[in-house]
């Protein structure tokens, strides 16, 4: 008589320490081996797109903040340059530079959370707190600029809400020289740690072709070895003026496109962002930031798809205008939403512990997935 066996269905979340928010994973297991992962979304569906239809164009900006709440600045960024393109506004040089400084600082802050919580998923508690300590310094920079720590509503259509604080430049330079050595500390503590490498190398390998077909973008795509960064490949704002590298996964300790590569690409990107911020500070021109602020935001009839390189990947806004002050439709192409779809593909045949490692390495934000 054959032994009766059945697959174990493990329900992870919505309250689970490492689903990075309110994600629910339905995991089918054979022993500890994963056969299928079904993500269930929508536990944080806050109806962004409905709100966008009911609000005027500038009123939508605070709602964009609340999508990817770890990279609010960048969400503002993408939306306002989209609307500016529809209106045909050219913003002053100073505004462009400030936007880039803020955007890149935000990228560092977002990667800090990504790396820190990834350490937490693997079981290392301390790097998380070190990174959060350093993140506070970036938040302080944002706070002296616009008064908010997390959700800024800083970039406006055609300008910015506040000019830089007189101390901003000095503090930012201090932060850069403070944080550079801390990246090495992180590498010593976590990145090259033998146990960490064992846990992440060769796990969840994402081949380049699959990644492209699934629409994966951002660090996850670059970790698979493709040098594709919208800041270079489809430049927006003034990114073409800066000199920076695009780090790609090289498979230093395992296969190209494994969890470790995804982690390491983010570490390298933080260094590049510091470089961009430094250059932007050196070139920062004087000027009035609210010169181009339109009296009334009322784009002509038509549509636009504006994409930017958010810390998580390609953030796209598809805006349709019907010629009134309210957008007719704003559809957001959220990078995490697309990146998460690959989870099932990646985790098949791995262990339960690896799902956590893979999910963490994708760096998702539920606010953006569910919107």
């Amino acid at each position, binding site marked *: 008589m054959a032994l009766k066996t059945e697959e174990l269905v493990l329900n992870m979340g919505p309250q689970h320490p490492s689903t990075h928010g309110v994600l629910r994973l339905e995991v089918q297991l054979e022993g500890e081996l994963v056969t299928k992962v079904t993500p269930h979304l929508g536990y944080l569906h806050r109806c962004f797109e409905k709100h966008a239809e009911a609000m005027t164009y500038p009123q939508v900006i605070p709602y964009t903040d609340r999508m990817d709440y770890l990279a609010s600045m960048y969400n503002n960024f993408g939306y306002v340059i989209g609307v500016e*393109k529809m209106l045909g506004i050219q913003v002053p040089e100073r505004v462009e530079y400030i936007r880039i400084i803020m955007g890149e600082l935000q990228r560092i802050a977002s990667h800090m959370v990504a790396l820190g919580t990834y350490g937490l998923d693997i079981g290392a508690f301390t790097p998380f707190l070190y990174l959060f300590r350093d993140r506070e310094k970036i938040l302080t920079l944002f706070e002296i600029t616009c008064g908010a720590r997390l959700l800024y509503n800083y970039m406006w259509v055609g300008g910015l809400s506040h000019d830089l604080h007189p101390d901003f430049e000095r503090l930012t330079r201090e932060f850069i020289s403070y944080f550079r050595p801390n990246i090495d500390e992180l590498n010593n503590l976590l990145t090259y740690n033998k146990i960490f490498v064992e846990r992440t190398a060769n796990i969840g390998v994402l081949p380049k072709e699959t990644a492209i077909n699934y629409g994966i973008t951002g660090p996850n795509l670059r970790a698979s070895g493709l040098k594709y960064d919208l800041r270079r490949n489809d430049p927006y704002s003034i990114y073409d003026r800066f000199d920076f590298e695009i780090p790609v996964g090289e498979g230093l300790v395992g296969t190209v496109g494994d969890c470790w590569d995804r982690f390491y690409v983010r570490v390298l990107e933080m260094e590049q962002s510091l470089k961009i911020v430094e250059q932007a500070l050196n070139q920062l021109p004087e000027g009035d930031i609210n010169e181009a602020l339109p009296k009334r935001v009322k784009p002509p009839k038509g549509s636009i798809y504006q994409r930017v390189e958010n810390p998580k990947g390609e953030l796209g806004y598809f805006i349709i205008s019907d010629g009134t002050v309210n957008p007719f439709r704003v559809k957001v192409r959220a990078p995490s939403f697309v990146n998460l779809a690959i989870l099932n593909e990646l985790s098949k045949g791995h262990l339960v512990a690896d799902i956590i490692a893979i999910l963490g390495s994708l760096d998702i934000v539920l606010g953006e997935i569910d919107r």
Partner: protein
Amino acid sequence: MKTAKEILEILQKKFPEIEFSLVEDEPSDQIIFTDALKIHEICEFLRDGEGLKFDTLMNLSGVDDANGEKQTNDDGSETIVGGTLSVYYNLDSIELNHKTTLQVSTSRESPKVESVNLIWRAADWHEREAYDMLGIKFLNHPDLRRILMPYDWEEGSYPLRKDYKDPEFYQGMKVPY
């Protein structure tokens, strides 16, 4: 790099029996308008065709065009009868570095669009979302369920339609403020 016009010409040559047109009055992007029930083969060609190579689907958005007849109900709310729902496809070619936008429309009463899920896996969740929000049925989609709203949300209630009305209660919880 190819403009929308050039792509349109290539498509017309390849599929003489399918109607294409260019939506012209756009401020920045020109949009190729085509048939909702032929979108699968068109997209397959766009992905594999020489000189096109659209290897990723950046975005897929469902839109309620709200171009039907507006009827006012007794309680003051509006219902839209007739008209169309549209789906926009934003395609990108990493290899050749060009992009384009496609648009298809379908009737509001029984919205049916062919799924492109098998061409770009990225379309999977986008299509589910369009179904969830607007009720557009994607033919040949393997797993067309609600994705963001609860699975037991009221049948036929699609929040992003322009004439959507909140239900009073969901599982005993009051929905309006």
